């Protein structure tokens, strides 16, 4: 197996291209006896640096982002068009209004980051609270470039120091953003707050040394059960886990969808939007659709959905990779079982719809949607679980009727069908406010 190397290593904001030598572990920690570089930098200034970084990413005069998009396309098998589309919108993560909105809604304002926020208790006693800059190791997921961008934006806003462990399927995005930041703000404290390097996940020679409370406060881990399990061994007093758990998403469609031919077509298109995010590799991608309606309506919808899955979308290909042989075989057998199962689409990557009375046992991937008829949408809430992230609902008016039951079952996010993609700044992510979890809350009590 060939050694994986990040093309560029970023160490404390500086580019270190010496890929031949091993990691300099000493360079990857920020000593605790020194304050974090950006600890005294006002949030307003940080947002300025991020905004300039975003503006330069948008123009990309050095072609850095374009190169990262090309590299991502070749390493993940995504179409170049999809990689380009997803990079083209990446600057929005650094939109100053969006960043201010996050600070406002997650922390109640920048005052608590910039200084000590006064507090008066129920008994009149006073105190002060501060969101102290954290020291974080981020184990990034690589299926969408937004993961790196969001991690950098959130990391910068909380003023801490951030060691980004790159995933083998995205060695490019984080270094490209950090290099861009170094261009607009060379040697700025925020720039010096980031390192981005690769080591093989689970490599104890690196992880057992770095994952210690003496160097870092928290481990921010994205997806991948194996990655979380290996890292979880290092969690202990003083070294906490912040997990963006591996998740999957579903859709709930009410009988209002069949009111007109047009609405049925539109709903199929909205569901296809949600089901094909990064060709269904994302946690927000819907995989199961629980649908009210008569058998004839549902089958007509399945056929329309198969057509919708076979179209190009901003982050999906009309024809993605062919279905893995084992999944294909399982579906082939079901398709021979008569009335109980219906299949629409093909195995070649244009997308596939499987209709069954109960949810299928396999995990639908590769633009595959399992449509399960339900009597009422409330019946479908039982199919949400602690692994459910996003639930897309149509029509939006029916969210109210089911959102408590969905939350009770474990779901974290209810959206209007078609709106699964993109976490909105200022709202929660995977059931928590990330900025709130990232910082270390410290009090000064009178």
């Amino acid at each position: 197996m060939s050694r994986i190397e990040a093309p560029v290593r970023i160490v404390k904001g500086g580019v270190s291209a010496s890929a031949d030598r091993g990691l300099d572990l000493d360079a990857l920690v920020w000593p605790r006896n020194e304050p974090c570089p950006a600890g005294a930098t006002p949030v307003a200034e940080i947002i300025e640096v991020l905004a300039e970084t975003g503006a330069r990413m948008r123009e990309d005069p050095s072609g850095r982002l374009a190169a990262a998009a090309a590299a991502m396309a070749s390493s993940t098998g995504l179409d170049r068009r999809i990689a380009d589309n997803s990079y083209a919108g990446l600057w929005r993560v650094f939109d100053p209004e969006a960043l201010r909105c996050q600070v406002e809604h997650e922390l109640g304002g920048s005052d608590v980051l910039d200084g000590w926020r006064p507090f008066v208790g129920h008994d009149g006693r006073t105190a002060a609270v501060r969101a102290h800059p954290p020291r974080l190791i981020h184990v990034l997921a690589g299926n969408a470039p937004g993961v790196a961008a969001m991690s950098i934006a959130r990391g910068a806003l909380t003023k801490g120091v951030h060691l980004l462990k790159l995933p083998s399927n995205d060695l490019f995005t984080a270094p490209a953003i950090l290099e861009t930041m170094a261009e607009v703000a060379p040697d700025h404290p925020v720039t010096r707050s980031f390192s981005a390097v690769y080591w093989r996940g689970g490599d104890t020679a690196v992880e057992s040394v770095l994952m210690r409370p003496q160097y870092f406060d928290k481990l921010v881990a994205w997806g991948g059960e194996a990655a979380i399990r290996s890292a979880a061994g290092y969690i202990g007093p003083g070294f906490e886990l912040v997990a963006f758990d591996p998740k999957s998403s579903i859709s709930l469609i009410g009988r209002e969808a069949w009111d007109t031919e047009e609405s049925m077509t539109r709903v199929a298109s909205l569901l296809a939007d949600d089901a094909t995010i990064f060709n269904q590799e994302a946690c927000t991608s819907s995989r199961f659709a629980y649908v009210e309606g008569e058998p004839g309506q549902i089958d007509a919808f399945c056929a329309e959905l198969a057509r919708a899955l076979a179209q190009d979308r901003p982050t999906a290909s009309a024809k993605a990779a062919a279905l893995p042989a084992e999944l294909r075989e399982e579906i082939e057998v079901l398709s021979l079982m008569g009335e109980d199962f219906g299949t629409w689409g093909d195995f070649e990557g244009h997308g596939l719809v499987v209709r069954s009375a109960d949810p299928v046992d396999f995990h639908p991937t590769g633009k595959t949607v399992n449509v399960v008829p339900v009597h009422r949408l409330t019946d479908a809430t039982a199919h949400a679980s602690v692994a459910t992230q996003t639930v897309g609902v149509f029509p939006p008016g029916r969210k109210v009727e089911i959102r408590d039951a969905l939350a009770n079952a474990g779901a974290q996010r209810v959206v209007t069908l078609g709106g699964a993609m993109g976490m909105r700044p200022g709202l929660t992510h995977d059931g928590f406010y990330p900025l709130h979890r990232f910082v270390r809350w410290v009090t000064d009590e009178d």
Partner: protein
Amino acid sequence: MRMTDTPTPALDRLLQLLERPDPLADVDFDLEAAQLDAVRERFADHRARIVLVDKRATDTGIDSVESLADVVPLLFSHTAYKSYPESFVTAGRWDRLLAWLQTLSAVPVGHIDVSGVTDVDGFVERLDAAGSHLLTSSGTSGKPSFLQQSDLDVERGAQILTALWGSPPRIPRSREHRVVQLGPARGPARLVYAHRAKSDAWSRPGASHAFEDEPLRLSEIMAVAKLRKRVAAGEATPGELADFESEAAVRRIRMDKALHDLVDVILENRGEPMLLTGLWRQLWDLVEIARERGIPDGTFHPDSVVGGAGGLKGAVLPEDYEAQTRAFFAPARFVKVYGCSELASSSPICEAGRYHVPPTLVLLMLSDDGETLLPRHAGPVTGRVGFFDPALDSRWGGLVTGDRATADFGRCECGRPGPTIEDSVVRYSELGQGDDDRLLCSGTIDAYIRGLVRE
């Protein structure tokens, strides 16, 4: 009762080789051509009888097998045999399970009466009585596969096994041995049928032993699957989980008792020729018990043969357990085979340490993705292992495995003709550790279920 009378002259020619003194060597015709004939014959027969084969052939546009490459798109993976929705079993929808089985079977099963069946063991028994002797195997998920087996398959399986087990040199079919299996005597498992075949061919009257009181109960295996489902749905109570743990402990005690009973039989009769099979960890338990009783190494009969199988899951054994076990059973011979539960024929290892694919089995070395047939010539060829087993009557013999191996179609060092497989087979799932951190944010409920695997 034979379920089918389809004549299979090409296959019969291959099966006749099994009756020769060395079935792995005594071939006096063009084996490759004869095997192609047998594949062609089987394809025509099964396309007419197995729905999924016909569908696959139609979808891929393969109407006849001109060369072995044509059979590659028609291979099934092991998933086909566990592709039924689990709810068919957990909700007791036996007629639907039967309909599923029909899509993979060359014999009719739709007519079998499954009314009144209450659990999966009852389902298996009902089919057994009707001439469908299901074989099952299960992974750690607890979802078993179901493999169709007709009377003819059972009969042929016995013929193939007793021609190849222990080879080389071949063990003559004479009833002069004690035959012991450290496993169930009854149940829908390949090892049960193997034990029966070995006993019929080789055991003296009254000298066949297995776990008589511990039949393989599928419902016990499926209880794990059922519970997993309830845990995933958030329905299982802590009490249920605790009961499951204690039932598993009771089961372990029962199995230990069954093992100890057989250990007594083995040790008392170790001076006579014995054919013994068991998991390595069971054989190691036996060695430890024997040592406690002061029995030294090397006291077994020289005509004895021991077959050790995998299954070290969770057991803590000394690093050299295999060498110590061999020394204890000396001068008995140890056998090693490479095979999959989906096929009738396995490949025994030769004196030179290579697995010999028997004449009744067609080795198909494939590209890693399983889609292209690799060249069949002398010299090492590495890729995904596929097989076509033309001997199977009631289910399809085309299989693509999850194994990566190096094969050689030339003559082996031992002097016999190929093809042979190097003793270095690995699972693809165990390769590619570098991909461990190809991280995605998507995942399933499986990541949220802890500690529910079959021991």
